[in-house]
């Protein structure tokens, strides 16, 4: 009987293979001995686990080595075993004492509201189980055959790194998080992974299909599901190769429509390895990351913006003014302790409340605009007066630069469409272009915090209500010949591409890593029938 489970997508791709279940380290509990003996058994087990990790680190590099180096550093710290040694002193066997103290340590991490810290729980479980296996003299883990789909409660990074993934394989976890170290490792090695599948994973046996794009896991698939998955897997592998080879070519649909593909960037480093020919320019520069430590340093900002304009070599560079506040606080700039900063002083509202800071940024942008095509993009705009005030400040910046004898150009000014009210009344804004920020538009339209949406997984599609707002502003822009693009995460969501093209969006700004596949999907799209070959 075919069984379909839905979890959170954590690493894309299709895996087809036999299930192997990993059980937690069990082994026979120790009988216990005198506290001195148990204490020395614990120290030896910690030492042996460190040695194992050190020999693994020697074969690894980069992120993979760094994750294990963190575990080694934790094991080297006497503080880690302090509680366990106290429990041993109270007469507990070393294994029970270690388990109890590590479970307390993990509970501290689980209680954190920060997703990164919660993600470290699996590193601690890794440390716990490594030491436990030495205390109980059990083999550390079951052997894994290449190409198998690993099913477990959670998967430890060191465990992942010990396995042989050269012939592929997949990971299906009952718990886990897309923000965990092991998810990061899986993405880096292109191993499909789905997390948060719940208790149903325990019923998985035999041949299984795992889809890391949609978060679907199919146990004992029927012939038709299997054939579909095999075809999809083939398309993905051929598609990815082809897409990368043809990245430099323009994005033209099967019926000849030329679309613009631009880049979202937060730092100059993200342009490493990319050529300006790969794209049609930069559609979104997140200056709150690019220059957050140089808010009052016009020269540093000018250098950063000028570097982008020079890199783009005649293609347009869109610079969004500071979008601080909300989930992107800048200490000393965005307000502290505001009850609901997502709905408060952020984006353009914050910039207009701090003209001293805003003028520095505007002068730097105007100077960079003298070097090549540049656009100013204002975030979180709700009222036309905000655009008017920003324009006045742009004029003041221009006067200041003229007085100082510095070269400048006043670039086109556009706004982000991310406040629902703005999306429904685009005609009130006297602007040169619109850029739809689907992430914020979705969270404001659905009353769902951005990180809650992120936790729902990569396969998240926009709400029909959000799409209706996007369609409204897109139709207005087309009818009035105002340039419009989409720059939220949804721009890189290939499943939604046909919807966006049908809506009439002709410009997409995405993370550099999404360009090749987006262009490939556009090449396979035919507007007349509204379908894409690569869904």
């Amino acid at each position, binding site marked *: 009987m075919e069984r379909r489970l839905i979890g959170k997508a954590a690493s894309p791709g299709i895996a087809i293979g036999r299930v192997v279940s990993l059980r937690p380290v069990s082994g026979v509990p120790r009988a216990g001995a005198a506290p001195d003996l148990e204490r020395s058994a614990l120290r030896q087990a910690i030492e042996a686990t460190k040695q194992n990790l050190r020999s693994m680190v020697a074969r690894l590099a980069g992120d993979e080595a*760094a*994750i294990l*180096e*963190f575990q080694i*550093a*934790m094991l080297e*710290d006497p*503080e*880690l075993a302090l509680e366990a040694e106290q429990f041993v002193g109270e007469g507990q066997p070393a294994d029970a004492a270690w388990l109890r103290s590590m479970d307390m*340590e993990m509970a*501290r*991490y689980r209680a*954190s509201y*920060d997703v*990164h*810290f919660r993600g*470290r729980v699996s*590193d601690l479980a890794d440390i716990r189980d490594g030491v436990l296996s030495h205390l109980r003299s059990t083999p550390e883990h079951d052997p894994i055959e290449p190409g198998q789909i690993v099913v477990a409660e959670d998967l430890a990074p060191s465990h992942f790194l010990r396995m042989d993934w050269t012939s592929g394989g997949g990971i299906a976890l009952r718990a886990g998080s897309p923000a965990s*170290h092991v998810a990061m490792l899986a993405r880096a090695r292109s191993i499909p992974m789905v997390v948060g599948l719940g208790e149903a994973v325990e019923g998985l046996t035999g041949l299984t299909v795992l889809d890391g794009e949609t978060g679907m896991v199919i146990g004992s698939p029927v012939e038709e599901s299997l054939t579909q998955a095999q075809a999809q897997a083939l398309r993905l592998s051929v598609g990815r190769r082809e897409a990368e080879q043809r990245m430099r070519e323009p994005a033209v649909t099967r019926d000849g429509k030329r679309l613009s593909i631009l880049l979202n960037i937060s*730092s100059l*480093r993200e342009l490493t390895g990319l050529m300006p020919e790969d794209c049609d320019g930069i559609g979104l520069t997140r200056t709150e990351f690019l220059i*957050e*430590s140089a808010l009052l340093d016009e020269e540093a900002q000018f250098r950063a913006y000028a570097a982008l304009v020079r890199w783009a070599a005649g293609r347009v560079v869109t610079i969004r003014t500071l979008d601080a506040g909300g989930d992107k*606080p*800048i*200490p*000393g700039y965005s307000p502290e302790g505001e009850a609901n900063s997502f709905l408060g002083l952020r984006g353009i509202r914050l910039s207009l409340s701090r003209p001293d800071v805003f003028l520095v940024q505007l002068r730097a942008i105007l100077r960079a605009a003298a070097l090549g095509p540049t656009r100013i993009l204002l975030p979180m705009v709700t009222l036309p007066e905000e655009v008017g005030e920003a324009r006045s400040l742009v004029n003041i910046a221009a006067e200041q630069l003229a007085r100082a004898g510095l070269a400048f150009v006043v670039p086109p000014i556009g706004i982000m469409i991310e406040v629902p009210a703005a999306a429904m009344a685009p005609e009130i804004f006297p602007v040169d272009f619109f850029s739809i920020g689907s992430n914020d538009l979705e969270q404001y339209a659905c009353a769902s915090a951005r990180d809650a949406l992120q936790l729902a997984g990569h396969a998240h599609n926009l709400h029909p209500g959000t799409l209706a707002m996007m369609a409204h502003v897109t139709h207005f822009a087309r009818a009035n010949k105002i340039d419009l693009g989409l720059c939220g995460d949804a721009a890189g969501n290939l499943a939604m591409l046909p919807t966006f093209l049908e809506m009439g969006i002709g410009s997409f700004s995405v993370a550099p890593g999404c360009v090749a596949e987006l262009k490939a999907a556009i090449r396979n799209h035919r507007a007349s029938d509204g379908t894409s070959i690569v869904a």
Partner: protein
Amino acid sequence: MPEARPSAELTNRVGLHARPSVKLTQIAKRFSARIEIATSLDGPWTDAKSPVKIMRIKAVRGEILHVKAFGADAASAVAAVVDLVQRNFDEE
């Protein structure tokens, strides 16, 4: 005994997290001074040479990290820790 206690903002992407914590303790261990960090001047103060204790602070991006040190090389120890934080732990 010499004592210095400046502070620095955590501006790196993930805060005082796994790898930043390891880097911080590696730097701290180069000095003989006792080095302590806290996210508030009122404490609690945490041993900067213990990754286990540092991870328990769960300091996130945007928090202020206060640093103090006691001992012969206290001033250079504090400067080295503050510099690491200001360099965003060489993360990006």
